[in-house]
């Protein structure tokens, strides 16, 4: 039996599972450790102590520049992208009631990719790169809106939502491939790097913009968190216990698009995090959306940070996109959990 702890503060009361809390604290410690490692490794290797000295007191200006202006924003962006994608995947898996659901499968990624590739091929010369995130986010939002409207028929059933999502996604991917095959090789290459997902060359405004956006979504997430588990029930059962199923579904879909769309807009189409991190979290932490979401966020953040670290240090002087290493790092751990757990 798990030990429980009750926190009471005026009218607020919450029971906390101690083993969940312990695991979350461990995951948080791991995340912080990975941040510290990422800050110290690179073309110039520093010791973790030196990094701490640079962060908290003054040091050699060139080293300070490397750590605070080159590495920190990039790591911060990677962490935010990973966390946002994983939480989005967790929400989608519960509203679609399918373990395969993820932002990649449901048209969010393909909408953003199609818009981004379109932008890179036709508008980037005239407008520059700075509007790429806006284009990607617009694409994700429009694709999801189209899917929701097409799936609506006296309510949006999960199966119809996902099937139409896959259909729309197939069309958008086809458009992306079409543009890629018929555009000049330079565009193809930059688009290909974007599609793989990379946080290369991030500077402070990017993670701050993404962080601000995610912070804005957080209250909505907290508000809806208690209801997420209800979505996994049958629609009629959920209605029976007094939940407005359709509103909740639309709200959750909106939150997950806002999370994943923003992450993809700034980090490129990093695949697989949104699928694998929620599953790892579900295998580490028992039922309950709050704990699983926190765990998924930490795992997603760690995974993308590690992937980026591997991408920029393993094949020096090449700087490979983080998206490549997410699957390479995440899959073995995931398969280990899958094999270990026997129902």
């Amino acid at each position, binding site marked *: 039996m798990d030990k429980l702890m009750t926190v009471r503060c005026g009218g607020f009361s919450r029971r906390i599972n101690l083993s969940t809390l312990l695991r979350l604290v461990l995951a948080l410690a791991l995340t912080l450790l990975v941040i510290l490692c990422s800050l110290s490794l690179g073309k110039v290797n520093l010791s973790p102590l030196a990094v701490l000295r640079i962060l908290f007191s003054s040091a050699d200006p060139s080293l300070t520049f490397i750590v605070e202006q080159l590495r920190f924003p990039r790591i911060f962006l990677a962490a935010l992208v990973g966390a946002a994608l994983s939480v989005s995947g967790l929400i989608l898996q519960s509203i679609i009631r399918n373990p395969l659901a993820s932002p990649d499968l449901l048209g969010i990624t393909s909408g953003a990719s199609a818009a981004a590739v379109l932008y890179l091929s036709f508008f980037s010369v005239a407008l520059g790169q700075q509007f790429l995130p806006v284009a990607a986010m617009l694409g994700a939002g429009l694709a999801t809106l189209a899917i929701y409207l097409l799936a609506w028929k*006296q309510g949006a059933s999960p199966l119809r939502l996902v099937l139409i999502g896959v259909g729309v996604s197939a069309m958008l991917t*086809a*458009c992306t491939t079409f543009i890629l*095959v018929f555009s000049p090789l330079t565009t193809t290459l930059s688009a290909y790097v974007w599609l793989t997902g990379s946080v290369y060359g991030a500077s402070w405004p990017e993670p701050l913009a993404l962080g601000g956006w995610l912070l804005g979504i957080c209250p909505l997430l907290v508000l809806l968190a208690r209801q997420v588990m209800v979505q996994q029930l049958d629609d009629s059962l959920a209605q029976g216990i007094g939940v407005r199923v359709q509103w909740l579904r639309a709200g959750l879909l909106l939150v997950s698009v806002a999370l994943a769309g923003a992450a993809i807009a700034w980090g490129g189409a990093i695949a697989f995090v949104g*699928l694998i991190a929620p599953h790892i979290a579900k295998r580490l932490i028992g039922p309950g959306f709050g704990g699983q979401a926190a765990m998924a966020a930490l795992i997603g953040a760690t995974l993308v940070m590690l992937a980026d670290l591997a991408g920029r240090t393993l094949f020096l002087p090449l700087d490979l*996109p983080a*998206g*490549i290493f997410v699957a390479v790092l995440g899959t073995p751990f995931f398969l280990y959990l899958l*094999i270990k757990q026997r129902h």
Partner: protein
Amino acid sequence: MSNGLKLGCAALALLLCSLLSLAVGATWIPLSQVAAAFVHPDASSISHVLVTSTRLSRTLMAIAVGASLAVAGALMQALTRNPLASPGLFGINAGASFFIILFSSVFSLSSADAWLWCAFIGAAVAGCLVWLIGNMGQGSLNPLRIVLAGAAIAALFSAFSQALLVVNQDGLDTVLFWLAGSLSERSLSVAAPLLVCSLFALLGTLLLAGQLNVLNAGEEIATGLGQRTGLIRIAMSVLIVCLAGSAVALAGSIGFVGLLVPHMVRKGLSIDHRWLLPGCALTGAVLLLLADTLARVVMLPQEVPVGVMTALFGAPFFIILARRGGRHG
């Protein structure tokens, strides 16, 4: 309309589309010439040679690939009991792509014939890996586990491919075109063993159709009725790898057909596998033939990847079908 009549219509559509596919291309060959090419072949006539060589091989391959992918998709969805499952979920497309990229960049193999076999081997390796992990540690195949293992292995292989593509940028264009799916540049003599393989696998699935209905009723019921579920599952997995593996080797990774055609046929025809599987084979073949014919002529003289065409023309149709049916359909 009865189910038999619907299947008949689909077969007729397949015949018409094949004729169209033989006649249409960069140069239009009248149907009388197409017929003459088969009845009285004239080696000195260019159009006769064109019809009996390149166009015939393309048409046959489009039929085989479309039918194989659609049937493999239906099998996969029955095996995993997941409506989102597609043949790609066995890691087959990712495995095939990875082997082709690996061999073309490391051993600089560049002939389409060599790619064919690389792709088939890659597909088989990935399929076996997924199957092993899905089965590891317990007797019967757990649908959830195989789905997750498949997704993970597919992601792993495509990550390897992406890494190779980013590092080795030469030849990115040809490989990209191949990956997008294309039926051009495959000679019939090289493709023949794979065509035969997929034909036999298609016949094999038809024999299994009745058993699939029993299996779909649930593990306990199927066992109670005396079915050896483990054996049926192994047979299904082998058939999926044969069908989807030869399809990806012949035509590159063509998405959409394997995932969505089974849903279309389920809505339009029947959920009984004895109707569903032949329906899938015919619909898949018609869809791919049409897409390939269009891909040849839409942007002359350049050719559009056929995978792009299937999704662009199939998806709207699929969305309309998905909206049809009941509130919870």
